[in-house]
């Protein structure tokens, strides 16, 4: 704590998870997240934890299902194609109310795509991804330092509300090196209370515990899902995180998360030098999405631009937040193309001046 270290994103994430109490990791190699399992393979045994290189992403997420059921803070990580493979398991984890941490260092897609950073998994992450009615708590860091410190928050929310948590970062954040300062002391896992639902050895002969997502009794599943929805509502109420920059006097707001939010910040500064008052709104939680906060800004600002490295996925949430009260525009690049501040600034300027090139999304 207090000490700044230069760290690669993926390693900072792994160390952050260990400091947040992670004691079990299962994963499968895929670029650009390989440093996470590599780091965990030697780091977890140092703290009495266990690491497994699974035979597939499918197996890895089901190992997590088992480990999470024991109340252990556990983690898996992957990148886009591997995250697709984990969706069935994630649905089961959500259906069994299991707290866990999963990281997606997004790459270009669909299919094998490429290995550069991208944001094409926004819909998958924020809409559940697998089958059935469920949510994931999804956070999106835009720096290595934020990535390093988010696992603690993810476990807190995951255990408090019994929900899987996901760190959704583009591969760029995982691959780059930046100074990291862990804000809190490492958690002493021996002091963590075993949850009252967790399975384990039962020498005291308490009532048996079951980890499962099924209920075939009449109305049983309905009760189970409704209980979960209550917790989702509480998360929406209590756990929204976001950041605003230069929004106080702005007449145009850029909405961006992850790496594009940094490019957008640079672009906004360029615009301000030209006298255009743009500002940045950065959702940190993608679910729950900061609808209310964006709505509040729309009382004063009438132009919003979603800047993304996807075909325009988050823009749908921006539009839902604004609900017709302000214009929603989109500037995006696909196929893991690199976004530059110059081109974002140029697009923003055109939008600001009323160009029809990036017409309002209807």
């Amino acid at each position: 704590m207090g000490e700044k270290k230069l760290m690669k994103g993926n390693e900072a994430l792994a160390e952050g998870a260990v400091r947040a109490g992670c004691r079990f990791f299962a994963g499968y190699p895929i670029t650009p997240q390989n440093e996470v399992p590599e780091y965990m393979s030697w780091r977890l045994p140092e703290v009495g934890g266990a690491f497994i290189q699974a035979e597939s992403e499918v197996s890895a997420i089901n190992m997590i299902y088992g480990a999470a059921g024991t109340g252990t803070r556990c983690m898996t990580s992957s990148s886009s194609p591997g995250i697709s493979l984990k969706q069935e398991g994630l649905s089961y984890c959500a259906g069994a109310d299991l707290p866990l941490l999963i990281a997606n260092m997004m790459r270009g897609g669909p299919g094998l795509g490429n290995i550069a950073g991208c944001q094409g998994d926004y819909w998958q992450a924020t809409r559940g991804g697998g089958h059935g009615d469920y949510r994931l708590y999804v956070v999106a860091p835009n720096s290595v330092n934020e990535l390093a410190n988010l696992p603690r928050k993810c476990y807190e929310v995951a255990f408090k509300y019994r929900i899987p948590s996901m760190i959704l970062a583009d591969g760029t954040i995982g691959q780059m090196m930046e100074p990291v300062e862990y804000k809190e002391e490492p958690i002493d896992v021996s002091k963590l209370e075993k949850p009252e639902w967790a399975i384990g050895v039962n020498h005291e002969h308490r009532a048996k515990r079951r980890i499962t997502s099924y209920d075939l009794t009449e109305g049983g599943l309905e009760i189970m899902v409704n209980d979960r929805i209550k917790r989702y509502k509480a998360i929406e109420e209590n756990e929204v995180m976001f950041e605003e920059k230069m929004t106080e006097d702005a007449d145009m707001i850029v909405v961006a998360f992850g790496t594009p939010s940094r490019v957008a910040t640079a672009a906004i500064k360029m615009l301000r030098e030209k006298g255009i008052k743009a500002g940045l709104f950065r959702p940190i939680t993608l679910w729950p999405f900061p609808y209310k906060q964006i709505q509040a800004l729309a009382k004063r600002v009438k132009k919003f631009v979603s800047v993304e490295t996807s075909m325009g996925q988050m823009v749908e949430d921006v539009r839902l937040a604004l609900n017709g009260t302000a214009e929603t525009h989109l500037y995006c690049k696909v196929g893991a193309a690199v976004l530059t501040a110059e081109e974002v600034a140029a697009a923003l300027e055109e939008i600001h001046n009323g160009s029809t090139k990036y017409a309002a999304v209807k």
Partner: protein
Amino acid sequence: MQLLNKRPESLIDIKTHYCPGCGHGIIHRLVAEVVDELKIRERMIFVAPVGCAVFADKYFDCDTTQGAHGRGPAEATGIKRTIPEAIVVSYQGDGDLASIGMAEIVHAAIRSENITVIFVNNTIYGMTGGQMAPTTLIGQKATTCVNGRTAKQAGYPIHMSEMLATIKGASYVARGGVHTPAAIMQTKQYIKKAFQNQIDGKGFSIVEVLSMCPTNWGKTPKDAVAFVKNEMEKEFEMGVKKDHSAADDVPAAAEAK
């Protein structure tokens, strides 16, 4: 009056959903008797599959988990590695273990995961209504091979025990049955050995159990027993396929941590 036999403590006293003549009830009882005799109920965590035995998580009097189809050995791995003291058993059917879960069972054996697997082979998908399984016999009828399985169209039945026995990490592999009193007695010994190995840290142990599915075979319980005896036993030879638990070359069981 003297009490000669009673319900095992490891089985909860409730009605099961199994069909008349189904083998699961006998196999559940054998597992429960062994767990009682080895005094490991407090340590046991039961991993239920997807398939007919999905509800087994309600029948065993211990903590249980039930997850995705075929992934029992992966779940068991996550449990065993986080609670080394636990005795973890993955209970699976033939569709679960030999079809969709082929990778998970093979790699659990490769790692010599220190778990016990009970593999119930009744050559058919029971819960979904009688589709062809990877273990369905040539000529055997199922709802997805109504004129009987042909090798030309669907290949040959898989011999899981023989295949797993080739894996160095597999410590103990045996195939029994529950269609005759002798087979039941023998199978109980196999199951006991498979649990004892886990207690002793000997690594991956699996017992395949040939079992009856009168409902989906379209047979009476009596004819179903005869089918196991006359047809299945010919394809799936019973006996111990591998026992390295006492040998010097016992594979190094995966250490939980």
